[in-house]
């Protein structure tokens, strides 16, 4: 072992290594991943964004490419802003995520629930990423993979979540909505939104994946 072991990240390595860039490389070197990634990028990156087509291509990417590639791109850990920006850009948020105005989250949920797939993916997310304070990891059955899978499963639907910015401290993810204009449903709206923005299970799952510390806690699927 090197004399630096146990002192945390080697500065020479952490300055240079960019896990999100490594994840893109791994994808580009795999024929299937490269093809489906290029496909959603070229569709979502068009001059005039066609969100319906962009979402469809994103769903195909996450459905047809093994999670060893897709999770790596989505949940890579970052030590510099360039890396975090790359991570935020994974789903081409200017087309797939952002919109002129932010709908109310409960209204967005209603829209999602009219689509049977969006409805069931959202239910999976609430079940698998439910903050469980009895568990060490804060996740149901300490199963990080199930939570990450349900998060990725919502990309390409009306409830598409993403990193809200490219800051390095404290990962915050959210769907594109707010709780303004909730009326007497304000409390329910905030509770719904916090499942994304302030969820210790989801946060731990993403961080553990990025650090590679999730391997012993849950079975690989």
């Amino acid at each position: 072992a090197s004399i630096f072991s146990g002192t945390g990240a080697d500065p020479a390595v952490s300055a240079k290594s960019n896990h999100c860039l490594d994840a893109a490389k791994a994808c580009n070197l795999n024929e299937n991943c490269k093809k489906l990634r290029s496909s959603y990028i070229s569709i979502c990156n068009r001059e005039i964004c066609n969100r319906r087509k962009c979402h469809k291509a994103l769903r195909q990417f996450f459905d047809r490419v093994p999670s060893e590639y897709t999770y790596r791109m989505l949940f890579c850990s970052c030590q510099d802003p360039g890396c975090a920006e790359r991570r935020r850009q994974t789903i081409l948020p200017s087309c797939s995520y952002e919109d002129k105005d932010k709908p109310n989250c409960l209204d967005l949920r209603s829209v999602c629930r009219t689509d049977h797939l969006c409805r069931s993916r959202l239910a999976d997310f609430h079940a698998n990423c439910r903050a469980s304070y009895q568990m060490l990891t804060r996740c149901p059955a300490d199963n990080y993979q199930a939570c990450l899978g349900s998060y990725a499963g919502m990309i390409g639907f009306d409830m598409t979540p993403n990193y809200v910015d490219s800051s390095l401290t404290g990962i915050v993810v959210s769907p594109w909505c707010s709780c303004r204009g909730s009326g007497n449903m304000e409390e329910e709206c905030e509770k719904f939104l916090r499942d994304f923005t302030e969820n210790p299970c989801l946060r731990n799952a993403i961080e553990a994946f990025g650090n590679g510390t999730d391997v012993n806690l849950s079975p690989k699927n």
Partner: protein
Amino acid sequence: RRRARARSGTRPCGLHELEVRVSELGLGYTSDETVLFRYCAGACEAAARVYDLGLRRLRQRRRVRRERVRAQPCCRPTAYEDEVSFLDVHSRYHTVHELSARECACV
């Protein structure tokens, strides 16, 4: 020199691959992403057609001399990769078509 040429000629025309950073390609994209660059290389000596033999003879006899003629096949792509995409250092995505070879032949 001749020997080196002859030795390299022992590998027939085929697809080769190289991991390259997009910036290395000199196409004007500033991206640290790595792509698999596939290219065609190798010998085509065995692939000479009757066409090539005939053309060579006519060239020797100076029946053909004005034009640039090629009396031997060349190892070139016969199909190209559809597209490959990457994010550049300015956080812009690019998609490039036909960057890599997909099939090679002596043509």
